[in-house]
């Protein structure tokens, strides 16, 4: 992928990611999150991870976002307006995030292999759904089944949580 496209999609991901935090209206935040996930899916595809990019679009930009929007509309959340900001707490939170960012930057700068370009892949041999499937069902068969049980437990848990108790 050309560097130009990489920076475009990286900027889309980061700007809309920041918009999620900055927006006051929850619906605008959710829609910014969709754009951020789409940019991220493009970045995955730029790394030749087509399968991951597609399930990113299907699961996050599709299912998870519909769930978020549905809950926002169901609870009828309005934009929080006129609420006074606790400046001390906000500055402390921002400072912790900036310190974390500085640490990540310094680690990446001193990480020698981070300055190397990606090794080339032999063209037209990327069959990544087949390879991920072989890895998933070969080396990670037991974790895969455990994740299936986890999803089942989550389904039952959601049904139990949202059931109204009789009084």
């Amino acid at each position, binding site marked *: 992928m050309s560097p130009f496209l*990489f920076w475009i999609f*990286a900027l889309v991901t*980061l700007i809309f*990611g*920041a918009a*999620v*935090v900055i927006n006051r209206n*929850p619906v605008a*935040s959710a829609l910014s*999150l969709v754009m*951020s996930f789409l940019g*991220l899916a493009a970045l*995955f595809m730029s*790394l030749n*991870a087509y399968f*991951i990019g597609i399930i*990113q679009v299907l*699961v*996050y930009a599709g*299912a*998870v976002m519909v769930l978020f929007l549905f*809950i*926002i509309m169901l*609870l009828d*959340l309005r934009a*929080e307006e006129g609420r006074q900001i606790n400046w001390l707490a906000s500055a402390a*939170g*921002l400072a*912790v995030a900036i310190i*974390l*960012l500085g640490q*990540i930057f310094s680690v*990446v*700068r001193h*990480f020698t292999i*981070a*300055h*190397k*370009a*990606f*090794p080339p*892949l*032999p063209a037209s041999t990327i069959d990544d759904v087949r*390879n*991920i499937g072989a*890895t*998933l069902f070969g*080396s*990670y068969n037991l*974790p895969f089944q455990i*994740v299936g049980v*986890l*999803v089942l437990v*989550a*389904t039952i*848990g*959601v049904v139990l*949580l*949202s059931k*109204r108790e009789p009084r």
Partner: protein
Amino acid sequence: MITLGDYLIVSGILFAIGFAGVMLRRNLIIILMSLELMLNAANLSLVAFSRFRVDSRGLPNYNAQVFVFFVITVAAAEVAVGLAIIVALYRARRTTDVKNISSLKF
């Protein structure tokens, strides 16, 4: 030329944005969205490392991509349970603001 470090920097900035969202926002739903941003930042660096470690057959390292698959599955389950908890909380307290939900605060 795009290096591994560029992807790691983007991933780090995205993680810091999500972290700032968790620290700064008071709405539970926005906090959950920021958590999703942090999970996705970790996924991006996993996929970048996967692409960087090309094996002898000339294929990326698929262990990392399987791990990302698991992360996405668990995150979807987590969102479903988290939103169900938020709905139950809203029913009981009529609010999703963490300032008004501080019964367990020390």
